[in-house]
């Protein structure tokens, strides 16, 4: 039997990239801005999304895709704000992929939606590798996670357009330097926009809202 060699040079994640491009086109056709929100578990993604929906309800129509390994806790919390929400349970997968997003799109009425927030599975590693068709990636880091995270998980900090340093009201109680987070994040990604926020005291949230509103003018 003749042994043959086939040259391929194919991106292993090509299938994901192809579906991400379809999603991106779909969002463009519907006039929806999609953002991919990523963080470790417990950094405060869902609380921030709930707060953002309530704060901007007279200005923006926001829909949400909730990604979790298990449970519908987050979708229930979002649903209570009155926003459209679809829960994806990955059943073990540590990140969302473009196909999972694609399969949820028929469950939304996106005609009146301005902003689609995709809350990824809580994880600082894998979500950074999978494009979903979003316009940009937004990352949360709560100060109780520690100021060493940018250098420990550089890929996510590199991929994000925005870093929200969350729970800054806890600063008196934890050993964390916000300045170190800023410096080391910018070392990885000099174009990163950084906001310091607290959903508890509402500090810094206006800047985040202004950034979102400016994004929608793009």
């Amino acid at each position, binding site marked *: 039997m003749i042994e043959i060699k086939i*040259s391929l040079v194919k991106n*292993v994640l090509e299938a994901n990239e192809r579906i991400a491009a379809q999603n991106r086109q779909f969002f463009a056709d519907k006039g929806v801005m999609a953002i991919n929100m990523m963080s470790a578990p417990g950094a405060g993604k869902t609380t921030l999304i709930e707060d953002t929906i309530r704060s901007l309800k007279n200005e923006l129509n926001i829909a949400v895709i909730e990604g979790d390994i298990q449970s519908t806790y987050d979708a229930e919390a979002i649903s209570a704000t009155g926003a459209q929400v679809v829960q994806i349970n990955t059943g073990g997968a540590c990140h969302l992929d473009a196909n999972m997003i694609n399969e949820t799109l028929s469950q939304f009425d996106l005609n009146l939606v301005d902003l689609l927030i995709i809350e990824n599975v809580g994880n600082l590693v894998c979500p950074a590798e999978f494009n979903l068709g979003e316009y940009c990636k937004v990352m949360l880091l709560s100060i109780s996670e520690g100021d060493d995270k940018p250098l420990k998980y550089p890929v996510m900090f590199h991929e994000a357009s925005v870093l929200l340093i969350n729970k800054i009201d806890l600063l008196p109680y934890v050993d964390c330097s916000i300045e170190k987070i800023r410096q080391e994040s910018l070392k990885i990604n000099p174009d990163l926009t950084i906001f310091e926020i607290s959903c508890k005291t509402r500090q810094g949230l206006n800047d985040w809202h202004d950034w979102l509103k400016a994004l929608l003018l793009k």
Partner: protein
Amino acid sequence: MHELSIAQSIIEIVTQDMPKHNLTKVDTITLRIGEITQVMPDALLFGFECLSKDTSLDGTKLIIETVPVKGHCKTCGQDFVFEDWPYGCPECGQADIQIISGRELEIVEFEGS
């Protein structure tokens, strides 16, 4: 990270391509994996071995070529090889580095009969 789903993609890509070349058996698949892709080679080899059992790729060997991290400094224009994540230019110290290589995750070729 997600080595199992990567192994599954490799199996799908290669098995879909095999009939085009009249291959019934694949001996080796060569991959090019960048050093900062967050893929663990051992976990990928193990995942591939498990998932390829009883498929047409049962017994196929994965050859992994690692690609070093190369960055281009947007400030001074120099290119460098980095041992780690490219934090800052070793020449001028500026942070604005464009990653040229090190994030590949590709099937380069496969061989069979």
